[in-house]
């Protein structure tokens, strides 16, 4: 069971959160081509390794935040607020 650390409320069970998929995506404008639009909509990084993703503390403070998580070990490398850039993990 994942235990995620909300930047405000601290560590809580997976059940308290909603997963929002990959973070740091840039939404194209209406003028974007079909290819760019479908890439944004459907093609995600889906890495085997560190995934930059967002979660909402839905059974808590209701805030969205970012998480860097290893998709193999499920280890959490970083938790940071929405809008901040990807952290340097080295």
């Amino acid at each position, binding site marked *: *069971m994942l*235990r995620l650390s909300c930047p405000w409320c601290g560590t809580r069970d997976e059940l308290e959160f*909603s997963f929002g998929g990959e973070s740091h995506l840039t939404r*194209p404008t209406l003028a*974007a081509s079909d290819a760019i639009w479908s890439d944004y*909509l459907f093609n995600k990084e889906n890495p085997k390794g560190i995934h930059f993703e967002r979660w*909402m503390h839905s059974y808590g403070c209701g*805030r*969205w935040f970012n998480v860097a998580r290893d998709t193999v070990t499920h280890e959490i490398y970083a938790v940071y607020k929405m809008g901040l850039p990807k952290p340097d993990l080295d």
Partner: protein
Amino acid sequence: MAPTQKNRLTSGGRIDRSKPLSFKFNNRKLQGYQGDTIASALLANDISTVNRSFKYHRRRGIMSAGVEETNALLTVSDGKGDVPVVRTTVRALVDDHQIKSPSGFPSVNFDLGRVLDFTHRLWTAGFYNKVFKWPNWHWYEGMVRRMAGLGNLPGGEDGNRYFHHNLHCDLLIVGAGPAGLAAALSSVTSGARVLLVEQDHELGGSLLANRALINAVDSDLWISRTRSALEEAVNVTVMTSSTVSGYYDHNVLTIIDRSTVGVKRFWKVRAKEVLLATGAIEQPLVFENNDRPGIMLAHAAMEYVNRYAVKPADVMVVVTNNDSAYQVAFTLYDNGVRVPAIVDARKNIANEIVQQANQRGIPIMSNSVILNTFGTSVLSSVRVGTLSDDGKSTVNPTDEIACQGLAISGGFNPSSDLYSQAGGNLQYAAELACFVPMQCRQRVTVAGAAQGKFSLAEALTEGACAGSEAANKAGFTCAPIDVTTSTTSSYNLKAVRITPAGDSSRKWVDFMADVTVADIELAVRENFVSVQHLKRYTTTGMSADQGKTSNLNALTLLAELTQKPIGEVGTTTFRPQFMPVPMGAIAGQRHGDFYTPARLLPAHDWHVRHGAVFENYGAWKRPEYYATNGRDRETAIREEVLALRRSAGLFDGSPLGKIELTGPDAGEFLNRIYVNNVLTLKPGRIRYGLMLSENGIIIDDGVFARLADDHYLVSTTSANADRIIAWLEEWHQCEWPDLEVIISTVTSQWGVTTIAGPNARVLLQGIESDIDFSAQALPHMSVATGTLLGVPARVQRVSYTGEMSFEINVPAIQSQRVIEALMNLGGNRIAPIGVEASLLLRTEKGYLHVGADTDGMTNALDVGFAGIVAKKQSDFVGRRSLLRADDQRKDRRQFVGVEPLNDNENLQSGAHFVTPQDEGRRSQGIVTSACFSPTLKRIIGLGLLERGFERKGETVTVFDDGRTFDVRITEPVFYDPSGEKMNA
């Protein structure tokens, strides 16, 4: 006649001889004592055959004294019904237990199934894959299925109560053997929150089967002192009769707790640090006919003597490949069991041990292994042979040595299941011939036998160190306690577990799954040489014991046969549960009403009193219809519809999602969410809108009202309320944080009562309110705020039925009062309306029901929103997707009305529009709603039809359950197309 307990020792053991218990085994009346397990009581009564094997129906006796038992998994009835697969080696005997052998027909002692044993050469691994293909497998399946299974489904009512619990601790210690106890004692002074979990009902672990001196006192005394010390420590909690069953990510572990009779608890523990002191499991030896009743793990034999005061047999041969079994032999001997020989695979045996054997006059046969065993119903003798120089064959078979028991010790294998589940790596330790923990990504340490430290001295000292270290790692300080033992134990194992002689199809590797050496040889011959293939092809380790006594031997064999080092062969994957867990415990309280919460309307009790028949609508329990005067569903719905159309209806719409948006950018925010233009909406007015996913698909519809310049109220469908709230928050927080808007959910604050119908206004005008309900002041699609019956109210003029309609929002606490007042006022001019009537009314009006009239492929254009989209300048969620070729396709499924050509045709929701048979029948869309309209007195429907917009008036064939008939495509609006009534 008093039962004899022939094998019971007259003294010793941890049983209470003053508390006899009677029980039945296969209808035979027997007796045991308080403190017995079922297995020890059976042994005391000299019961040897307890079961038949899974595949070959071989006789099987008790082979262990612990959780690793493979044979004595019996059906036990405690008065409430039969429960199969009970591990009788760890189940306490209680008075009146009825124990049955699950297999054997007609009886466990005379089993016709033995024919399978006589023909065993046919039923090798992979047998099913090779035969039973003609005419097809299903033809044979029934027969095969009946033969499988370890017992019947539990019968009778389940009298257990199941509860979930959660727990946090700084240090979780698993296992209360010497290592775990020493660790727990060491952590007492740390102040850390420590949890010690032991599956047995007593603390002590292997010490219970043994005798030793610890800190110069008898181990029994040490255990009880330790127990008191731990119980006194406020920071330590001890759980017994509790098994850690799973080790999951982020150091969360599960425990199945059986400590209270009739109750099973499932604990989820979040531990900062975990210390595994789970001990080790003795491994069997593999030789011809090694599965006969009477053959038992050596340390189990010792446990029966020491803990339960039962001699497993009068005459017992001991066979081993390590020193530890000598203690067993001596214990047996010292308690009156004759030990004709210790058969030892090793050439060199330590002098002091030899001396001790000599003192007792027990002959040692070194460099020897068991070749075969004999006996009909129970073991009668064994034959021994000497290992050849290269160890690859045997020589000098002896005559048969008479005995009724054989204690086997192939050395120990650490209980690494939990470690491995945690993601820990195991490494093969050649000198111990077993797998030991190496490293793990989680916060876990291992101590004692679980770490391959098989001596008591090591278990104690390393346990103490590991306990304090783990507490330190969790941020607490303490030092290891001093704990010493004068009892020495040596191990000196020689890695011989498989006798290199004999008929391999009679040498068992996995007793429970009935897998023999021959199966493994065959698998390797056929190239199933990956451990994983081997496991699945032979089913080794896949039965209810999960290979606790078979995996290692199977790997050893595989390595031998493929000439690879065992370490390279690797293990199969350990998975939860460590021990099978009753599923009721895992579900806990989540059953029936607690399976998922049901949401009740604020005026629930009012609806109950007025005959509401409730149905699940998403999470809500809502009135499906009102069974007023005992009318049936159909009548009720029809009458409700007519009552509303003729006069007025009252509908409880409280579950509607209600979201308030405040702030200068509230309009802009909504404008980016809705397909519609939000910015042109005037304060006090309401608009109907659609929300799309980014993929252009309709996810919700509903109205939004502008309460003030910078204040909007959004209504969502009841089913989607939570989803839409999360959706808005996500867009705001993640995508457009710069927009100055605050989103507040007020769904449950407001109870919603809708009054609709031609008399709605007159009715409302009779109620105490400062709101002007007149058409001029409050026209269709407008909103007013004020008070009603003295409480704050918001009234929205929106209509889901096509009638003049007022949606009255009052604080939910007041909802029931308002309903009562309106109903009293209306008398027989108003009727309560259930959800089904409401849905029917909107079908007549041709209003969309998202999720019924739309599916996950329906976009905004398909329901006629092209014009609205075209008029809007700016982007909104999903807009870009509507520009794709497929979204613009002319032949998409579009929203239409439908009516059967012939009035008698029973048009039903779920029918499909189809192309004519001669064009090759193909679905062109679906009838998404259909009903007999009480208002129009004919059948009408809504649907999604290819090119539907341009096919109004066309005749189309529909298909339903094999029938076809013709329908006419119409506009979706059947009732009051001009909107006169609604706007009245």
